[in-house]
């Protein structure tokens, strides 16, 4: 449990670092590390498939897409961020942290819930047999993404 909390803390810290770093490549790498930590958290929660997906897709594919975009948009020069927001961040962060756990503990433990039925089957059976409509949706999403990118990068005849 301690390890899990340490991983969660690492996740939050690396995400905060991704926000605060001025250099975009460093931000993207921090985001990738945060995804990696999230994948390990999933694995330790008993969700190995989610963890594998998280690491390979989010820490891998999405990071590559980000780095590609950063490389393609490098030449224009850097964008000036306001210094105040970076400096004020730790203050707001600590305040939020203090309020957050206090509130969460009191609210969430009070949420009543139905007792669960024990789960049967394997992950594959759940995904393919019980949530089959999700797969149709996934196909639709992939179509949407592919056609969007094709449409947005099409050759333009006029200029």
């Amino acid at each position, binding site marked *: 449990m301690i390890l899990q909390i340490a991983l*969660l803390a690492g996740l939050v810290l690396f*995400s905060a670092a*991704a*926000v605060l770093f001025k250099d975009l490549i460093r931000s993207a790498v921090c985001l990738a590390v945060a995804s990696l930590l999230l994948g390990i958290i999933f694995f330790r929660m008993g969700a190995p498939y989610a963890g594998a997906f998280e690491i390979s*897709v989010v820490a891998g594919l999405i990071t590559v897409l980000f780095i590609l975009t950063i490389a393609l948009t490098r030449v224009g020069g850097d964008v000036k961020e*306001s210094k105040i*927001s970076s400096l004020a961040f730790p203050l707001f962060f600590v305040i939020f942290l203090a309020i957050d756990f206090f509130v*969460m503990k009191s609210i969430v433990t009070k949420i009543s819930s139905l007792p669960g039925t024990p789960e049967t089957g394997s992950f594959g059976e759940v995904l393919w047999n019980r*949530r089959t409509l999700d797969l149709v949706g996934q196909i639709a*999403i992939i179509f949407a993404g592919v056609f969007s990118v094709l449409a947005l990068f099409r050759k333009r005849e006029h200029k």
Partner: protein
Amino acid sequence: MNSLWFVYMGFAAVLLFVGIYCLLTMKNLIKLFIGVEIVSKAVSLVLAATGFARQNILVAQALVVTYIVIEVSLVATALAIIINIYRHTNSLDVRKIAKLKG
């Protein structure tokens, strides 16, 4: 109901805060999208943690996997839009592209 649910929800809320803070204060288009990515992580953590707390981790995993597929499509589309904006204005500053008003 696992009593550790509130720990995970607490951390997810902090991640949400970090993501929304990024969206509110950053001016670089790609940084803004990194904020969206952080919010996505928070949401997938909420999904997985809820499933874990209910001992229903298999269904939650299926949801997280589907959610990650949605996220990939979204990232591809958004980055395509960002690259196109860069091609037009040669800058990634959100203040420079804001022309529409009213």
